[in-house]
């Protein structure tokens, strides 16, 4: 009984938060639509809409066009300028640090190398010499496969763990034990089992992406507000309806957090894994260029890895925002 209540507590707290947030929103929407009778409400809304449009079309030519453009430009500068300044600072320091020579190439030299490199990103010159485009795609493919399988296994596992207390009591200690282990420690096991480098790298990705997905999904399931489950109980919904209408939508934001964390670590790990396994891939490419002593290519690779990671992250943020029903 006590354990159940403690387990229920975070859910209840989440529920209270939601109610408070509701109250905040309510205040706003009362201003908007009020509790007037439906007919009047919609009528006044239409009237408001007409008024708004009228005001807009009036105010457009009223303001001088040049002033508006100036305003936009200023807003744009406000957004773009600080990051640009930061970048300039970085390049400046980089330039100063490499000015006196030494092993590390300066910004100019790296830029020239990048231009040459990206002029033909998709060449193939034998299995160990391919364009940077192919290398990035090969890494992305490994991440995609490893991560995809991890999602197929991890998300259902998370649901089961969240739903059945016994299962989570059984498996939580094991997960806690394995989660802090560097996924690279699993690489030899992969090599042994699969006898080939490529699936072994994918295997490491699978291992490192599965934990955040299991844990976040399970946490989401235990945090489904009791209110929603009460609705399901009063309606006596079938398990399938409970899952599709209540559990899944309620857990989705948590799941997406898990996915985001997974992709992030997967992209971190792939570089290291490929350095060890070889073949085609951005990690292997970095290692190869180190052996060729083309340090400017390594610097380019660092930028490319960063940019691809950033794009992955942003894409998932976009998806997450699409499914966050709270502030849609």
């Amino acid at each position, binding site marked *: 009984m006590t354990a159940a209540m403690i387990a229920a507590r975070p859910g209840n707290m989440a529920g209270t938060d939601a109610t408070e947030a*509701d109250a905040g929103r309510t205040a706003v*929407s009362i201003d908007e639509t009020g*509790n007037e009778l439906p007919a009047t409400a919609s009528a006044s809304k239409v009237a408001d809409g007409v008024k708004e449009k009228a005001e807009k079309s009036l105010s457009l030519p009223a303001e001088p066009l040049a002033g508006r453009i100036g305003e936009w430009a200023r807003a744009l500068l406000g957004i773009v300028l600080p990051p640009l300044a930061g970048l300039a600072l970085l390049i400046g320091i980089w330039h100063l640090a490499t000015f006196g020579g030494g092993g590390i190439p300066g910004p100019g030299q790296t830029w020239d190398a990048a231009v040459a490199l990206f002029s033909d990103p998709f060449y193939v010159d034998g299995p160990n010499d391919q364009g940077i485009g192919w290398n990035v795609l090969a890494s992305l493919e490994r991440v995609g496969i490893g991560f995809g399988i991890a999602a197929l296994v991890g998300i259902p596992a998370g649901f089961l763990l969240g739903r059945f207390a016994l299962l989570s009591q059984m498996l939580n200690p094991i997960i806690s034990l394995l989660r802090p282990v560097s996924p690279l420690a699993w690489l030899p096991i992969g090599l042994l089992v699969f006898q080939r480098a490529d699936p072994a790298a994918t295997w490491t990705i699978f291992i490192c992406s599965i934990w955040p997905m299991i844990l976040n999904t399970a946490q989401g399931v235990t945090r489904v507000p009791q209110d*929603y489950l009460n*609705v399901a109980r*009063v309606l006596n*919904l079938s398990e399938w309806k409970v899952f599709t*209408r209540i559990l899944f939508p309620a857990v989705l934001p948590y799941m997406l957090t898990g996915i985001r964390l997974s992709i992030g670590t997967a992209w971190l790990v792939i570089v290291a894994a490929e350095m060890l396994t070889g073949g085609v891939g951005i990690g292997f490419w970095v290692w190869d260029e180190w052996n060729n002593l083309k340090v400017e290519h390594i610097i380019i690779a660092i930028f490319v890895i960063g940019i691809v990671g950033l794009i992955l992250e942003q894409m998932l943020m976009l998806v997450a925002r699409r499914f966050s029903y709270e502030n849609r």
Partner: protein
Amino acid sequence: MTKKIVQIENVGQSFDTKKGRFVALRDIDLDIHEGESIALIGHSGCGKSTLLNLIAGLTRPSSGVMLCGGREIAGPGPERAVVFQNHSLLPWLTCFDNVYLAVERVFAAKEGKASLKQRTHEALELVGLAHAETKFPHEISGGMKQRVGIARALSMQPRILLMDEPFGALDALTRANLQDELMKILAATKATMVMVTHDVDEAVLLSDRVVMLTNGPAATIGEILEVGIERPRDRLALAHDAQFGECRAAIMEFLYHKQLKRAA
């Protein structure tokens, strides 16, 4: 009044909390008859929602017996619809879909899609929200959410309608409209109703009996008032009705004289 539909015998409810056992309700004895309307009234925190949840089957009593239709209440069911105090709409479904979920559950076995949609539409129309069907819960006001919750419960055509302060968040005009609608629906469907309320007038207007709870902790039924005003009731005529005034006075006396001293 004929058949007993709900029997509550010697029911107590306590919760295990960090500070030990908290007795919320004790020695509750109440029979609810078929077609009867009951109002539960009492000071905030006395245990009204707790009692309603017990009847709904959402929680099980710590002691005593709860029967519905002669059988032990083992859990909730769609024949006992609940309007929750905090509306409990699913935020990822539109108002229409929130109600449709309930309609589908109850009627899908016997009726086609068109008819289910028609029922959903009618339920929302009843609470004056036909224009908000496609909106999501976070896009409408608190009172409107509460009305969707009422529509959801009514759409199920339950035998017993359990309502936890359903009109609490509404303005006086909407509240009066919905009270009138509710009285019509109850008269037409002969459904049984248990409603938690803070509003003395509402309790007298809507119910056959007003069940007054003493202050918690360990609240129990202090008094039961038989309203005895004929139906159909007309709110305007009742405003000057002597019987109405007496009922009102009796509840006020209980709440503000007998129970106030013990209120925290």
